[in-house]
């Protein structure tokens, strides 16, 4: 396989090793952040705004502070007059200030000797508010006379990317289709909640919490508290499902502030309602646009305007999307995104980001064009999707001025702004065959079967996403340390929310080092130990962290072989290999030494044991400019036209994430994305009170998510392995294209069943309304 520099058959890549913390998970011994306790710990509770938009004119915590057992209170008077910014514009604001921007916004916090006292004390804090007019609708918030949520105004600078001449392109097109969609806000609906424990020692702070981004969390704490990075330590702990929720959240900084005030460690644990209503959510998104194509089905122009809300504290200029390039063969394109602040809980990144929403909308425009041309959707997609080696038009337009391949990297880096690998074509062909698409697709808007009130039909949808990105942040890195008994520690900052990254990273390292993953211990959460990394966001871990892990392992390996050649085996390092923990001469295998022996023996020259610390030697190329993951989903639905209920009968997932590192880990990842996407497609949405902006369904009773019987019991999964030139052993990211493929597939299937296009979620009410029954 290319990208297997050692050119030997892979021994651990591609195998379904059990995940590293499997035993802890099945015995209930894995510690999550909510389980965290430190000696002398106090308990904190947050006072939250009952108003969507207000200024605090007076805050009196004296009664609260007088309550026996209360150790201290923090208000905006205690907070540094500094904005902290989360990565990718997910949050910008003071830790506490005198301006509240959504119902549930943090106003103050109390620390007490136990949680009950803290809860009581919170009620005793007296706050006078000057209520300000509020705005909840993104379109309203864009108006000049709208209440301004942020000092710098509601509207972010429009994020425009255009190439060619889209107006001329549309004019010249044989077919032009137009549409718009409205996506309600999806929530992460986390099982497991979160907590933060903060402890100060002199001028240093340590924080235990569940975070997908330990490094970024450290950056944010340092920024928000106005302190050096070296004095902030994050110990990232496992969380329940996160999918974008637990990055750095303001309640973590409140905890740090409170701990500093009372000079004792403090734990703030969020209850279910706080998790749902006060942290973040997916944006409300409203794309509209047109697509032009030729009469033989080639896309010629795409013109999309996308409005989305950032809630109270998000400041994203665009939701984040790579799908424009999936159809980037269009010669003319214009994507205009407008992010706008509203007085709803903060909105920002959630699994799949704009590739779920803009991606679904793009699929819809494609489908509308295919309908006009009477083309099978499969045929239309196959004709138009980006192929390996083709230019990533939108990225090129946006970033060509920033990136250039340095001459010394030309032979190592792929061609930037060109797709490095792709097996989407194979996904569509093989998927269609396996799913029996030819027989099951009866034509646009034509059901496969009608039985009483039930209509069955099939749909196909495509999703894509990057495999991590650069975007003004640090390099993603890793360190490999080989210990004197031959065991290995791998340190690479990642989230621990069930995506199996510690396992797959250990497989990469094990493959390079010629040992088993079991012999590698992975530290993913401690910023004292792990070098900077994006963490587990934007499908970074397999690709970018994997690249770094492989690089660090290769470095460690070459150090090992150099020592072996120097002292123990006659030959040059390049003549040696490691397999099953034994270093040996490739031509004379009886000349060997075990890794454990090599590490434990004092070297003849220095009289000390070796010290092996590996770090990536080669620079990582800008992966956003060439690496993409792809998913194509095929689904069969049944719509009951009397009750509006939609059932998923059959589901086939196809996935191009390059080489499969661990098939069972990857199967779980892609299925999870599909189920979350299907939930969004059919039943999930946050409901806000129209008058007050309060979240009306901040719990699992009222915010429904899929359970086991709601999704096909054993969906089929096909992996089509493109071989990426940069991803470790050819692998690519996988986390987000599946959720992006799920919605358009289901949406199309519903159209084929009942002949109407619906907004998301496609609730029974929406179905009946579209059919004219209510």
């Amino acid at each position: 396989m290319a990208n297997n520099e050692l050119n030997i058959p892979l021994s651990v890549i591609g195998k379904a090793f059990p995940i590293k913390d499997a035993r802890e998970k099945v015995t209930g011994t894995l510690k999550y952040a909510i389980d965290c306790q430190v000696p002398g710990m106090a308990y904190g509770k947050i006072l939250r705004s009952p108003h969507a938009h207000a200024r605090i004119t007076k805050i009196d915590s004296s009664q609260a502070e007088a309550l026996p057992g209360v150790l201290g209170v923090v208000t905006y008077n205690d907070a540094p007059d500094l904005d902290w910014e989360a990565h990718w514009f997910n949050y910008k604001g003071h830790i506490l200030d005198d301006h509240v921007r959504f119902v549930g916004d943090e106003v103050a916090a109390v620390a007490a000797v136990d949680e009950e006292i803290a809860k009581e004390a919170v009620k005793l804090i007296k706050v006078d508010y000057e209520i300000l007019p509020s705005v909840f609708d993104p379109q309203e918030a864009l108006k000049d006379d709208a209440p301004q949520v942020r000092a710098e105004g509601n509207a972010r600078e429009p994020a425009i990317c255009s190439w060619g001449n889209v107006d001329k392109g549309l004019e010249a097109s044989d077919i032009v289709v137009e549409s718009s969609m409205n996506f309600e806000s999806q929530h992460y609906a986390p099982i497991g909640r979160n907590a933060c424990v903060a402890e100060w020692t002199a001028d240093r702070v340590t924080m235990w919490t569940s975070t997908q981004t330990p490094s970024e969390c450290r950056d944010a704490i340092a920024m928000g508290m106005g302190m050096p990075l070296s004095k902030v330590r994050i110990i990232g702990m496992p969380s329940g499902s996160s999918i974008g929720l637990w990055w750095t959240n303001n309640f973590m900084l409140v905890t740090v502030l409170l701990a500093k005030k009372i000079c004792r460690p403090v734990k703030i644990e969020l209850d279910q309602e706080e998790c749902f209503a006060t942290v973040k959510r997916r944006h409300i998104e409203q794309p509209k646009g047109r697509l032009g194509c030729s009469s033989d089905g080639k896309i010629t122009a795409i013109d999309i305007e996308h409005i989305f809300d950032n809630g109270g504290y998000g400041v994203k200029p665009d939701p984040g999307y790579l799908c424009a390039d999936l159809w980037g063969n269009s010669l003319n394109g214009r994507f205009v995104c407008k992010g706008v602040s509203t007085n709803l809980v903060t909105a920002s990144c959630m699994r799949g980001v704009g590739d779920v929403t803009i991606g679904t909308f793009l699929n819809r425009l494609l489908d509308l064009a295919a309908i006009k041309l009477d083309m099978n959707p499969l045929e239309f997609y196959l004709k138009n999707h980006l192929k390996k080696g083709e230019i990533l038009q939108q990225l090129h337009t946006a970033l060509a001025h920033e990136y250039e391949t340095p001459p010394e990297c030309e032979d190592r880096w792929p061609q930037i702004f060109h797709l490095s690998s792709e097996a989407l074509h194979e996904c569509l062909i093989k998927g269609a065959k396996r799913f029996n698409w030819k027989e099951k697709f009866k034509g646009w808007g034509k059901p496969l079967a009608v039985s009483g009130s039930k209509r069955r039909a099939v749909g196909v949808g495509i999703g894509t996403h990057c495999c991590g990105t650069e975007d003004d942040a640090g390099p993603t890195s890793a360190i490999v340390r080989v210990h004197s008994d031959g065991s290995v520690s791998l340190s690479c900052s990642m989230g621990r929310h069930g995506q199996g990254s510690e396992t797959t990273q250990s497989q990469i390292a094990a493959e390079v080092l010629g040992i088993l993953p079991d012999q590698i211990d992975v530290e993913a959460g401690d910023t004292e130990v792990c070098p900077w990394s994006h963490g587990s966001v934007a499908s970074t871990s397999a690709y970018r962290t994997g690249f770094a892990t492989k690089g660090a392992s290769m470095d460690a390996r070459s150090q090992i072989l150099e020592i072996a050649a120097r002292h123990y085996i006659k030959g040059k390092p390049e003549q040696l290999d490691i397999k099953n923990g034994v270093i040996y001469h490739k031509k004379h295998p009886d000349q060997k030494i075990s890794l454990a022996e090599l590490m434990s023996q004092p070297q003849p020259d220095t009289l000390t044991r070796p010290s092996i610390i590996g770090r990536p030697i080669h620079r990582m190329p800008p992966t956003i400019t060439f690496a993409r993951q792809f998913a194509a989903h095929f689904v069969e639905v049944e719509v009951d036209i009397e009750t509006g209920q939609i059932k998923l009968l059959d589901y086939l997932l196809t996935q191009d994430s390059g080489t499969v590192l661990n098939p069972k880990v990857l199967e779980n990842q892609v299925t999870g994305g599909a189920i979350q996407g299907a939930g969004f497609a059919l039943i999930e949405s946050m409901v806000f009170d129209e008058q007050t902006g309060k979240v009306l369904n901040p719990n699992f009773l009222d915010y429904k998510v899929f359970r086991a019987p709601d999704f096909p019991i054993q969906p089929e999964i096909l992996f089509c392995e493109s071989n990426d030139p940069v991803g470790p052993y050819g692998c690519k990211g996988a986390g987000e294209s599946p959720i992006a493929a799920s919605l358009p597939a289901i949406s199309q299937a519903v159209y084929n069943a009942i002949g109407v296009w619906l907004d998301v979620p496609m609730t029974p009410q929406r179905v009946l309304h579209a059919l004219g029954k209510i």
Partner: protein
Amino acid sequence: MKKTFTYLRPLTPVEACRFKEKYDKKAKFWAGGTDLLIQWRSEKIKLDYCVDLSFISDLEYIKKDLDLICIGSSTKVNALENSSKLDDSLSIIREAAGELGPPGLRTTATIGGNLCNAAPSADLATPLIVLGAQAKFLSSTEERWVNMDEFFLNVNQTALKENELLTEIKIPIPRDTTATSFLKIGRNVVDIAIVNMSMKAAMDEAGILSDVKIAFGAVAPTPIRIKSAEKLLLGADIFKIKDTLIDEVGNKVAKEVKPITDVRSSAEYRREVSRVLAVRAVKNILGDLKKRRKV
């Protein structure tokens, strides 16, 4: 300062009533507690004395008594779900129990708790209404029976007087020629009902319908009977009922229900789906009766 209450554990129904009388409004009967616990925590109810009924074995039973099925009010929902005594036409009680909340809840939730909480969507309500069940109320001074028709007064309000305890539900075992249907719609497999309903109809040897009962839940402040729809079917010959009549039944139901819009669903949707479920229930029952008539 800590929020708590006094826990009382009576071992007989009479002891329970005595506690309740003693502490009056400050005490509540706690069956499984699955509704009360949440209400107490969210401060929707005040509770100084918790009278735990779950140790009164005399309140937990499902037994046949001649032509009656008698169910103790503390019988667990999962016992109902799995009871072989609730067969034939009584199976709608089993079906409703099997759709009540998540499975793990049914181990502690009770039939009495579900009824006395009196949520408009109480899943066990409509089956018992259409089956003509009666509820026994016990206080320290008297015992009385109330028809299920008159059990529910308003949202979270029943005909129980302050210090009365629901002890038993008795259900006349329907005749062999009775068919029943229970239907529920939720947003997904585990949900509070957006609409739920039950229907019962008996048939004589000539195939004429009698004893038609239709009850709907989650579409009014209490579960309600739709008597105008029942009347349309009374006396009808099962082999002569036309689709137009069945549609009229649905329309009557749609007219009579009083649904609201809430976070789960809209009033319009509930109304329309009530109509659909009514039609489906009628067709289910007719189908069932026709099969038996042929036999």
